């Protein structure tokens, strides 16, 4: 194999576990998650930060992992869709997506659920308008967003009840 430069060690915390990877500094966080760590929940829909299918949380911020060079993730806390459910127990957003029809083909679902997580972490009682704005960086071609919005509202309501 050709020498494409050095692959430094990068340490990051993914879904609560510390991980060490060797990667080219400009390698995309998305590729490191998918190819090195086997976390294929984040998807590549466009590779240019438009569709949001690769959304993950990085130190609490919502990022498109296709636009994040892995070097920037050095020392960061990353949460992916795989980090939400606790064993067989679904996160309330995941359950709400199931109940309300928020997932159809499912390819955008991991990214949208991460965006919804980010929204609910900041806004516990989002209005419909806030949900629509909060998810507007994530494209879904199946649902027309109506049932996604309802799922987020349902999860928010349950969150308040707990």
């Amino acid at each position, binding site marked *: 194999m050709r020498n494409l430069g050095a692959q430094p060690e990068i340490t990051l915390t993914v879904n609560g576990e510390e991980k060490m990877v060797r990667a080219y500094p400009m390698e995309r966080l998305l590729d490191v998650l998918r190819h090195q760590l086997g976390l294929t929940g984040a998807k590549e*829909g466009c590779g240019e930060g438009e569709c949001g299918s690769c959304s993950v949380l990085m130190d609490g911020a919502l990022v498109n992992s296709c636009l994040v060079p892995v070097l920037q993730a050095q020392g960061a806390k990353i949460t992916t869709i795989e980090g939400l459910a606790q064993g067989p127990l679904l996160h309330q957003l*995941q359950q709400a997506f199931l109940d309300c029809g928020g997932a159809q*083909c499912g390819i955008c679902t991991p990214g949208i659920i991460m965006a919804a997580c980010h929204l609910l972490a900041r806004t516990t009682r989002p209005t419909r308008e806030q949900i*629509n704005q909060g998810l507007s960086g994530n*494209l879904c*071609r199946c*649902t027309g967003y109506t049932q996604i919005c309802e799922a987020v509202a349902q999860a928010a309501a349950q969150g308040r009840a707990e």
Partner: protein
Amino acid sequence: MTNEQIIGMPVPRKEGRDKVTGRAQYIDDISMPGMLHGATVRSSIARGKILKISYGSGIAWDEFVIVCASDIPGKNCVALIADDQPCLAEGVVNHPEEPILLLAHPNRHLLRKAVEAVSIEYAPLPPVFTIEKSESQAEIIWGTDNTFKKYCVEKGEVDDLWDKAAHIVEGEYSTGAQEQLYIENNGVIASFDRERGVTVWGSLQCPYYVHKALMRLCSLPEEKVRVVQTETGGAFGGKEEYPSIIAGHAALLAMKSGKPVKIVYDRMEDMTATTKRHPSRTRHRTAVDKHGKILGGEIEFVVDGGAYLTLSPVVLSRGTIHAGGPYHWPSIRISGKAVATNTPPHGAFRGFGAPQSLFAMERHMDRIAAVVGISPVEIRRRNFLKTGQTTATEQTIHEPIDLEQLLERGLTLMDYRVRKNRFREQNRSATHKKGIGIAAFLHGAGFTGSGERYLASVVGMQGLADGRVRILVSSTEFGQGTKTVLSQIAAETLGIPYADVEIAQPDTEQVPNSGPTVASRTVMVVGKLVQSAAKGVLQTLKASGLLPEQYSRDEFRDACARYVAEHGEFKSWVRYEAPPGIFWDDEKYRGEAYAAYAWAVYLAEVTVDLTTYSVTVDDFVALQEVGKVLHPVLARGQITGGVAQGIGYALYEKVVWQNGRMQNGQMTNYIMPTSADLPSIRVYFEELGNVHGAFGAKGIGELPMDGPAPAIVNAIEDALGIGFDVIPLLPEDIFQAITARRPANDAAGVQ
């Protein structure tokens, strides 16, 4: 049977947990040992002869697997309807992005550079890019006359009705290409070994279409080709015929290299090289009496099929049959034509020709209303098709339909009259003008005409050793809920819990050919077969004495398990048989075009901002009669999703063409609606009976694509008093129309 109801209940999606947890495995999530990555070298010009292919320096070409047309073991074609489309171009190219060479390498990052290092010399030939130029036949690019297919539907005497008409209303309407824009790009993995032949795993709608294409291309017998569908991230028709091409490419690379090969397109390749909705042009000439009653008319419907025939004849067929809308035409002549141009072939996309011709019909109804001097509501009411009347193909509508009542309910839900009056007042001085538009339409479920008879779909049901059952179909899940709804039908028929039914992943080695997953046929046609197969299971168990007439769930489980234990295998098969009394004449295009139609009335409320010229859809009512709703959440999701695509079709999604190539092949510059762009879509169902589908269900998936565009453009006319007959309709189009209308001194003031 002591069963609680499963049909009509919102049972959990079979594959839902995998989807919400990120565990569902789409093709790009799968890797195989020793796997290579494949890439495609494509044509940079629209039409010409290939003179020379050279491999540039700086690339270790001996590390690459290279496949060209001469490596194809079988016939170099994408087997579908005709054999005109090569799998790899040989000597000539007929559209930009046409595949010419295939490359494979273990490192996918090196592939891009290698693709760029291949240079191809061409001798260009004059290309054809528009319907008009193709029709002119100045340049013949396909067959003898650039025409893939023509249809003529004729009912009554059209030629002698013009003298009797109080009004003759003419109009011309056009629709643009539309990208399916599933969020998961096309992708497959192929492997090959001499014993087992070719296996392809992929994101696809129709495993047996791919199977057929691979047999021809690879010159392999049926049993040496295996196609497995992986979880599919949206399709909408875009993965109906195209997967045969990408699967063929991966298979050729796998055969040559002896290694598994993955090809997954990036977004730009997917958008520029794969199919889109056919652009269309429709001309109407309608004779109307003084009360607004349609006496008859002529409709000329033309679609741009792109460079090869692919599915254009079938798209044209559906568009032609739907061109008259849900109205009664005492006489009508509809001529349909699909023509060739030098763009990548246009293909299947939800609605399949009907959104195009229905856009024209529903815009034309508003035009007729204006000429006659009655309202858009009244023109429709006076012409709605009624039970007992015949369609353009002279199919008598036997099912109970009440379009007037659907319309009336739609008007009430929209609070139509009150809002219309309010808008009329407010619009006088407002810079944000509001309007409401209506579209009434129908969509036929299942294959057109004799299509289902030719398909002769087969469905199986297998009893399992633990007493549960498994459905065996090639019908695929790609978001609509195929697995869930077919399982509901089986569970309800068998009188067992939903959880006791599983459904096999479509794999041509494991499941029979239940036909392609297209044409809103899965619930109505395949669902009915699943119901029959389930009845077969019950009959067998009862005849064998293992199951009493009345039984509990546990008794069913025991009986099924015992049958399997005693006989080794327990499978029940059924094959589609056309219902008696169905008549269709393929020559004259006359008869029962579809076993059943879904009917709908949609209303859109819009605001046109006269500062930005942008349009927002503020409220949307989608009211339809689709027979029995088997799963309320999934059915509603089909409608909201289809309406969103329809809103995109009308207002956002413009394919910008340059020399036959899509120029805006990115999500950054091809704009589909986001959550911030759409209203909450209000969905309502009427449930009338239907004898054809399982538990009275009809087709649903494509219907919602047909209505939004005309409803929205009608609403814009209502708001502005300016009619538009072309979609997509972008702010710049509205700006131009408004400035063109301004008095001359206004324009002078600008100078």
